[in-house]
């Protein structure tokens, strides 16, 4: 029975380092190559020694697929391809391909330049790695090789996030990456067709949560911004150039318009152009509303949001500033933060995750005294707010996706098995499918039952019809005879005559023969007649003939009689039958060995 193996790589059942190996139909695929943001040592990368103990991965992997640009899904990519060694194709969508190297470079700078770590990938490695990337379009089937094909579906979550279907022959697997089933201000909801994969692989991180609505998250954001503005404070929002920034800008723009607010909002320099550039490129990845309004006006050219000049930071009165980078580790956002940190009227809103070693990470952990370069300390008096806008499918979303794709098996990764018995039971009950939860390094094996398409010749069907009997009932299996031939990579069921013809073979007859000795003091022809009479009485309903050439035939079985050269009373019977009548032939030989009854005339 063919099977599909799925192995999440890494240590323990923990979140934040997606890397899953799938072997399907003889192909090996790596899904995501993420890093763990909580570790500084080897544990931050997946354990690639699982694939091979020595050296390069190229010959063990047919391809690598990256679902989206978050570092817990792509952060280990340059390490894997350039330091461990992999030269095969890496697939990701166009937006992911554009954004992923920027994030990797940002992260490299923090790790190497700020924290002084060595043994980390270099800028050149990021570039070399990205050269191996093959871009994917949504809903386009990409042939990795003759047998392996992949197809990307829209996943919501972040710009460019994709779910991916992997197919070999009639076996298939869908990997969801991170996805979101409810549209938000700038992205749509995940969608997949009823592709009925053998396995649907999903993250289980949010499988047991019920999410607070996006609007309530936004409401709190507006409330915080407004509170600070009202007391005359300044609000700093450190952002990554793409993604949440646009969403929050649309939100603030709407709010300012409705509330008729006057405090200025600034977007740090360079950010607007960069963002506009990307959104123009990837407009098809945003939601319908944005796509539509983009025709009339650029959604990201705002009425209330103006470009920022560094001199504005010292202006009196309230203001809101969006500035990069998002983790306060360098650049404009850090400069502004240093200026404003001392005033408790001010506020910094961190709309996303911050990696260890950054100022963002420190202040989110409640640190109020920061050591800056040159031994100076910075006292943090401003209000620090952490808001998560991440768009993930929750328990309900996972069920919705299962309903959409109708998988034959469900597989949840990164979950704590014991705490998910209910969820497993729920999925198994509601959809009558098996649900697997392998721990990292543990393999889940799913047997598949791939259907093999076979063409049947029209002649064979017509002959079957001509044989009479009722017309075939589509719901009931019916036996028919034919010859299965494999020709030009396809299977055909044809009549044996046609098979011989097509394959250029001669027909052979297979016959069994056997001799039976018998004590019978009659002439040969009398003995033959006695056999004829005997068989007639034993085998009712069979065609039995006494032929003039001195043979008896029972169906295809031929019986001849001759006398032994030594003893005229010893008769030798020659039996011969074709392969098809094997049962009857052996029955007759056994029967005749017992001799003829005496009362026969």
């Amino acid at each position, binding site marked *: 029975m063919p099977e599909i193996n799925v192995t999440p790589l890494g240590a323990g059942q923990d979140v934040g380092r997606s890397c899953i190996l799938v072997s399907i139909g003889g192909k090996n695929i790596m899904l995501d190559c993420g890093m763990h943001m909580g570790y500084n040592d080897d544990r931050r990368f997946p354990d690639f020694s699982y694939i091979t103990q020595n050296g390069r991965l190229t010959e063990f992997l047919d391809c690598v697929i990256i679902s989206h640009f978050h570092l817990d899904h792509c952060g280990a990519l340059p390490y894997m391809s350039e330091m461990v060694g992999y030269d095969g194709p890496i697939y990701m969508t166009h937006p992911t391909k554009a954004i992923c190297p920027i994030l990797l470079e940002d992260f490299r700078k923090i790790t190497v330049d700020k924290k002084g770590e060595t043994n980390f990938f270099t800028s050149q490695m990021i570039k070399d790695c990205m050269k191996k990337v093959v871009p994917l379009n949504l809903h386009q089937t990409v042939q990795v090789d003759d047998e392996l094909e992949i197809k990307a579906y829209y996943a919501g979550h972040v710009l460019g996030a994709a779910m991916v279907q992997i197919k070999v022959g009639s076996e298939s697997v869908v990997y969801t990456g991170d996805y979101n089933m409810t549209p938000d201000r700038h992205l749509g909801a995940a969608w997949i067709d009823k592709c009925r994969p053998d396995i649907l692989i999903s993250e289980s991180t949010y499988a047991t949560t019920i999410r607070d609505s996006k*609007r*309530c998250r936004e409401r709190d954001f507006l409330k915080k911004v407004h509170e600070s503005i009202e007391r005359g404070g300044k609000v700093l929002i450190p952002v990554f150039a793409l993604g949440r920034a646009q969403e929050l800008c649309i939100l603030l723009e709407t709010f300012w318009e409705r509330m008729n607010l006057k405090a200025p909002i600034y977007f740090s320099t360079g950010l607007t152009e960069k963002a506009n550039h990307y959104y123009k490129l990837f407009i098809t990845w945003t939601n319908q509303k944005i796509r539509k309004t983009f025709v009339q006006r650029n959604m990201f050219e705002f009425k209330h949001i103006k470009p920022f000049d560094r001199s504005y930071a010292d202006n009196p009165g309230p203001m809101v500033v969006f500035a990069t980078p998002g983790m306060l580790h360098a650049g404009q956002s850090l400069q502004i933060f240093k200026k404003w940190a001392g005033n408790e009227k001010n506020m910094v809103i961190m709309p996303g995750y911050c990696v260890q070693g950054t100022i963002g990470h420190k202040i989110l952990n409640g640190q109020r005294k920061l050591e800056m370069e040159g031994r100076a300390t910075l006292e943090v008096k401003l209000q620090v707010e952490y808001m998560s806008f991440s768009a993930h499918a929750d328990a309900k979303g996972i069920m919705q996706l299962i309903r959409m794709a109708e998988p034959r098996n469900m597989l949840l990764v990164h979950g704590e098995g*014991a705490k998910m018995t209910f969820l497993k039971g729920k999925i198994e009950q509601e959809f009558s499918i098996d649900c697997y939860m392998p721990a990292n390094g543990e393999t889940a094996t799913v047997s598949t039952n791939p259907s093999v398409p076979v063409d049947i010749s029209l002649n064979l069907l017509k002959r079957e019809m001509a044989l009479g009997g009722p017309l075939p009932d589509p719901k009931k299996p019916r036996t028919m005879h034919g010859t299965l031939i494999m020709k030009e990579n396809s299977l055909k069921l044809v009549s044996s005559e046609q098979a011989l013809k097509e394959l250029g073979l001669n027909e052979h007859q297979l016959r069994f023969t056997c001799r039976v000795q018998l004590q019978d003091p009659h002439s040969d022809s009398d003995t033959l007649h006695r056999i004829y009479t005997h068989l007639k009485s034993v085998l009712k309903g069979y065609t039995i003939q006494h032929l003039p050439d001195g043979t008896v035939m029972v169906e295809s079985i031929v019986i001849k009689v001759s006398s032994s050269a030594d003893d005229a009373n010893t008769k030798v019977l020659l039996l011969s039958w074709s392969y098809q009548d094997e049962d009857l032939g052996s029955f007759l030989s056994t029967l005749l060995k017992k001799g003829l009854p005496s009362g026969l005339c």
Partner: protein
Amino acid sequence: MKRDDWSGVSGEDRVSQSEARWEKLKHNRLRCGIDGEMEEANVEDILDDWFIESLKTYKDLHVYQLEHPTQVIEWTSGKTVCVAGYGSSKNEVLELRLPLKLFANENKGLCAERDFKVVHGGFADGPVRCLRHVPGTRCIVTSDGLSSNLQVWDLGGDDSDVIRRTGSVKGRTTASEGVSRIAARPSSRPHILHGALSGDIQLTELTSGKTLYKLETDSADPLSSLQFVGDSVFLAGCRNGNIYVADTRTSSAPQLSPPPASSGESEPWWTDASAGPDPSSCRVIRLSLSGEAAVSDLRNPGAIVSRARLDVQTHCRCSSTDDVGLSLAPALDCIAVSGLGRAVQIYDTSVWRPEPQDALPLFEHRGHEVSSRQSDEGSVPALVTSHVWHPDRPRTLLSAAADGSVHVWDWVDRSAADAPAPGAK
């Protein structure tokens, strides 16, 4: 800068703006059928309006969507609640942990955790119409409304996420008499008080199934509520407005108080009472379908202390009244009413007088109505199916509606905001 001075438009104007939009939207829908993104945008606008308005009226607001609607919300600890489906066949019983953000006192801003977590779950074969947690245990008891028998469940511990059915409790009658009401209180050997009619109330020990007490009454009226108000004293509220107060330690006849005299047809009635160490501190509230409310004292439930005519729009008169909820606030002189109109209403009972008078709600939570307009069958806003007060946070409630929404909200006390007078509640 004054707190309210943050826009050129007052709150009231904003409400009317969103109302106008809604009216226009309804009109459009009638004219051109359910279609078009204009309308979709309009619904979005109404929601945006409501959320912007909510910045002033709520301290906290969290909006969740369950897969299946619930008629029960029951606290199982200070941080967890149970909800359960009421579909005709298979249903889920879930224990949810409230988000950390709701409990963070210091550094609230640093706590981004705002989701419910499903900590335990189980499957029920029938609907769950009533659900009660037995204090001091990990045990819940449910009624499916199909018979007077109850189901007993173990919520499970830290090592598992499964809620398991562990047994059942036999009711006094076998026939279906509507939903059994269940009351529980802390005790060394867990027992529950239960019954669907005033005539079949009994106290059953959970482990042994032994009947410890039976209430003897002359009539058998369907119950709308059943609760302990002291260690052994309990109150049973009937749909016809009668109240029985009895003590499980004695077999003496219960104290019966008929409903307050009312103008016209008023059945059914709903009742709630506050619990306390002595009867003088226990208040009883009764509310009729027509909106007549009366507060009395447990020592003499027949004597009305104060009363009012509530502003309930009873447009569910023709449909089921199963969903109606009435509750006394644990920390304020307030009541919450849900299931009669589309909103959850809060009334301040401290201003009521012995003579009946019209009372306007102190606060209305219209969130379920507004957000259910978003769904495609939008023309019928979802009815509120249940609500509970937070035991410790005075103005925090949880409410659920027929569209599966669950809201956690904490309203802003306008009187305190406008004039922080000394002695304000």
